[in-house]
């Protein structure tokens, strides 16, 4: 199970090693080169086009968005954005704030908790370690439908129902297992000599973890932060079940669902709202993407 984390890890460090082979491959024929780029351009086009098209549509008036002859620019303006942000179509800014709070807290809590767990699992051979990792694997299989009613009751009993913190805890249970596996892979690659040196110098086990190992695993932390953030930012089912119906307490994902149901024909406005929702996620993605595959050494290899 830790292999995928290890793989992500090597993706980061392996780029330097890739250079010699890559240089040799540089001798590939012109035809092969054209084919390679053609394939990648096509794939990139398919990957980007749906998002690009929403972006284009977001500037069009609703009537133009459903035009039978689509054009890139068609009476385009920023009116849709103004409408959405001014709150004419639901309290967009409040939803946005809620989402930022919830996703941010989930990221902080999820990364912190899974890093301590991953460190313990990576370094200490304590009884129950295997059972814990197996539980995490099985947790990936839980369909939320079994959990949702009991969870509702438990959150109610804890006084967390309808509160952001309840949702944050629920999101952590979905994000933490994967993050723990991933971080365990990263910690496994940090030599234990470092821990021992730290202990000799008088640091406590927590001190070693906090001051030595955690900074070294920063790329791993970035990847897990990205994963936690995306998980919480885009989640629909739990959010629609556990947040109160008041407009001001919705997250973006829930608010936008309502927005879509109420404004079925206003494709321009829907697209503008979608772009606004996607922007923070893409920004976070852009910040961590170099850790996600290429890695630090990659800049040198002219990735």
């Amino acid at each position, binding site marked *: 199970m830790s292999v995928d984390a290890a793989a992500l890890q090597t993706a980061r460090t392996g780029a330097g090693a890739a250079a010699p082979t890559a240089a040799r491959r540089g001798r590939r024929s012109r035809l092969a080169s054209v084919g390679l780029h053609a394939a*990648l351009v096509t794939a990139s086009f398919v990957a980007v086009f749906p998002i690009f098209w929403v972006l284009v549509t977001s500037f069009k008036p609703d009537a133009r968005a459903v035009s039978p002859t689509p054009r890139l620019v068609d009476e385009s303006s920023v009116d849709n954005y103004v409408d959405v942000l001014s709150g004419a179509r639901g309290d967009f800014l409040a939803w946005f704030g809620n989402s930022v709070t919830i996703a941010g807290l989930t990221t902080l809590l999820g990364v912190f908790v899974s890093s301590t767990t991953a460190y313990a699992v990576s370094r200490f051979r304590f009884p129950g370690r295997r059972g814990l990792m197996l539980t995490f694997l099985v947790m990936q299989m839980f369909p939320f439908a079994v959990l949702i009613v009991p969870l509702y009751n*438990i959150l109610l009993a804890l006084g967390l129902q309808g509160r952001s913190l309840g949702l944050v805890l629920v999101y952590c249970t979905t994000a933490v297992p994967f993050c723990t596996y991933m971080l365990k892979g990263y910690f496994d690659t940090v030599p234990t000599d470092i821990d021992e040196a730290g202990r000799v110098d008088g640091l406590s086990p927590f001190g070693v973890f906090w001051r030595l190992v955690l900074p070294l695993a920063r790329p791993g932390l970035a990847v897990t932060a990205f994963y936690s953030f995306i998980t919480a930012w885009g989640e629909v089912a739990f959010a629609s079940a556990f947040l109160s119906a008041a407009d001001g307490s919705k997250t973006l994902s829930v608010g936008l669902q309502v927005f879509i149901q109420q404004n079925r024909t206003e494709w321009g406005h829907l697209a503008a709202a979608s772009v606004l929702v996607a922007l923070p996620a893409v920004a976070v993605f852009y910040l961590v993407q170099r850790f996600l595959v290429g890695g630090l050494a990659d800049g040198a290899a002219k990735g």
Partner: protein
Amino acid sequence: MRAFLARHWYAYAMVLPVVVVVGALVLLPLAQGLYFTFTNINEATIANPVLDRPASYEFVGLDNYVNVLTGGESYGAFWSTLGRTLIWTFGCVLAHYAIGLGLALLLNRRMRFRGLYRVLLILPWAVPPFISVFAWRYLFNSQFGIINQALGALGLPTPVWLGQSDLALFSVMVINTWLGVPFMMVTLLGGLQSIPRELYEAAEMDGASAWQRFRDITLPGLRSVSSTVVLLGVIWTFNLFHVIFLSTGQNPHTRILVTYSFERFFSGASRDYAVASTYGVLILSLLLVFVTIYRRAMRRQGEVW
């Protein structure tokens, strides 16, 4: 006992928060959910603290399981839904893996714009899924969607992609393939880069063809990464509810086990929690059986994990 604690206390202190949260928010609800499958709990019989109404649901034994497993239409036609779930799961995972591996192989070469391609290709992962689904619904729209407009301009038929037909299942699989490829690509790219270069150089020295190098070095080198991501992919796709639910709603042609469970949970005034939970428990059981068989098969081939 004291020596035991002295030796392990910091390990336990570090895992304690997770264990508490997991215990309270996963294991406890799971036990309760399991119990619900033997009752007739629904919106009318559940305890309602707001109305100050006590719970009035009763123990009904295996009735829920009998109702579901006999495959009645009013209980979601379990067996045909299971068949559709299997098509959906294995179709999607196969597409994810094949396309992800292909792109990873292409990206694992030195070339111009490599970093740019990589960012663009991972982009679908970064956009929140409900936005992507919305984008695809717009593209797939039968009247003004750009796909049908392009097909119409070429004189080809312009079907209703996300309507009441089996074509809808194909369409949601396309959407999910688009969403899932980046994860596979990233992990497989990592796997590719962990294969020692010397192996390829030695093979080339010995005159191995590109295909032979792929078959005898790349595939075996990717085995451990592949077995993990395929396992995770199957589990995630089997339980993936939002893509289908957001793109086609309650459409019997795209109904899989998880979406039906959600339908029972949320639809109408009745809110049949018992049947929803029964579906949940059946899903969990099926996945546990699958994982057991999968791991055994992997172990037989010499995989250790």
